[in-house]
């Protein structure tokens, strides 16, 4: 029934909010759309998998570990690749990020194979209230997503780091002459990305299992969320994610579930035709 579908959609949307936030942050600060966001999600899931299944750590600990490991990986990736392309055209960075995604996803594929894995967690029960079913995984997703969103909100609005990110996103030259090192802020931005994507990777892995394709199939949805919200607006990213989640779940009522991922594409096309700046963003025109 509809209400159940909408509820499921909210939860899906919440899970999508974290990677959408990460994409938005890196877009604003680094000025390019990171097509490797899906692959980074995959890596996060696999980091957690190794910590949880191979090293027998509880999932919470594994999640925190994955967040830290991914943050370090992204800082290293920036140092090795993105830093060397720092002031190139956006399209070069796009292609480079696709290259990075090939590398990341296939390292996972190389090590773990194509099959789907699962975290080691006790079977979680469910709840029922007002005719709506709600399971514990969904609960964890909601809690983690909310925690992530609140953390980002506080970070951007009330911390020194957040102010430095806004400054560099706005005007890196001015930030420099006010004493802010662009490179240091960029490193920290990747670290934040890593934490968000690590946590999100665990959530996605919980919901649909961990396999090398995990991020790739999420990629379009993450972009759809960010574009719907307006590329560059964190609040927009969250709103966009919730909307995409609900629309995707509702779409399963009318079209085959195989095409769930296709809804993201259709939504993007739709938005770009009607209102390219999304809900809360400003449109970025071709030079």
């Amino acid at each position, binding site marked *: 029934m509809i209400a159940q579908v909408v509820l499921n959609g909210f939860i899906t949307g919440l899970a999508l909010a974290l990677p959408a936030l990460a994409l938005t942050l890196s877009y604003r600060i680094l000025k390019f759309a990171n097509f490797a966001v899906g692959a980074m999600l995959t890596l996060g899931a696999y980091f957690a998998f190794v910590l949880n299944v191979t090293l027998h750590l509880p999932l919470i600990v594994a999640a925190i570990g994955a967040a830290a490991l991914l943050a370090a990986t992204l800082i290293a990736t920036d140092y090795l690749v993105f830093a060397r392309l720092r002031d190139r055209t956006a399209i070069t960075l796009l292609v480079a990020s696709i290259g990075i995604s090939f590398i990341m996803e296939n390292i996972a594929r190389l090590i773990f194979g194509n099959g789907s894995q699962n975290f080691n967690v006790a079977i979680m029960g469910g709840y029922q209230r007002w005719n709506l079913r709600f399971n514990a995984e969904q609960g964890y997703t909601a809690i983690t997503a909310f925690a992530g969103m609140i953390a980002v909100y506080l970070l951007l609005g009330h911390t020194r780091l957040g102010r430095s990110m806004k400054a560099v996103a706005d005007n890196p030259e001015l930030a*420099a*002459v*006010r*004493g802010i090192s662009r490179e240091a802020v960029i490193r920290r931005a990747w670290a934040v990305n890593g934490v968000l994507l690590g946590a999100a990777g665990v959530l996605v892995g919980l919901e649909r299992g961990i396999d090398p394709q995990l991020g790739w199939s999420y990629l379009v949805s993450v972009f759809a969320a960010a574009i719907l919200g307006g590329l560059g607006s964190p609040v927009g990213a969250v709103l966009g994610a919730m909307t995409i989640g609900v629309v995707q779940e509702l779409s399963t009522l009318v079209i085959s579930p195989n095409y769930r991922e296709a809804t993201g594409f259709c939504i993007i096309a739709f938005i770009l035709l009607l209102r390219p700046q999304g809900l809360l963003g400003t449109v970025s025109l071709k030079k």
Partner: protein
Amino acid sequence: MTSPAPALSLRQISAGYQGANIVNDVTVDIAPGEIFTVIGPNGSGKSTLAKVVAGLIPTAAGEIWIGTSRLSGLSAPERVRAGLGYVPQEFNIFPNMTIGENLAVAVEFLGRSRGAMAKRREAVLAMFPEAGDRLRMRAGLLSGGERQLLAFACAMMSGPKLLLLDEPSAGLSPIMTAKIIDRITSINKTGVTIFMIEQNVTEALRISTRVMVLVAGAVRVLASPTEFGAKYDLHKVYLS
């Protein structure tokens, strides 16, 4: 008795973009406490010179010193720590952040203690009373003149010994210009050396200790305002 080190020392500075030098062999020493103004026709390289001193454009040749510290080779953020304050000509505030955030950001990344930062804040707010009760307002909503004042305030947050101003009165009404010029002289009286790029020659001559004319990237004249008024015809100098 040795004279104190110059507040700013430019030694044979040449700089430009991709091979073509916009600034050629500029040499000048600015004494502490001076108000030193650079004037010149459009395209003479004045803004480039300011950006070179600020550390935004690399030098092709020459050295820059502030007091006894060598600025050459330092990044822009490092120069702020060395005592340089810079107000760019445009885009000199963060419009999407509040006034309070603009001020905070200008002093938070210099490795200072909380106490020191709080003291700077007080000092700057005293100098710039306009800011006081509007700290939560988005800076983008300020008028042109108010933005300029905010930009000054932000540059002053780091407690600089030398303040670099790029066309501070550009695009402002005569009243606002007078206010800005007034503010500059007050700042100077607190001991901050001023190195200023200006289009407005009259005002420049009025408050400056010395004036330098830059034409096509080279120094044409370096004199006090009185000497300047007596000896030089500005038109001829600009066209030379």
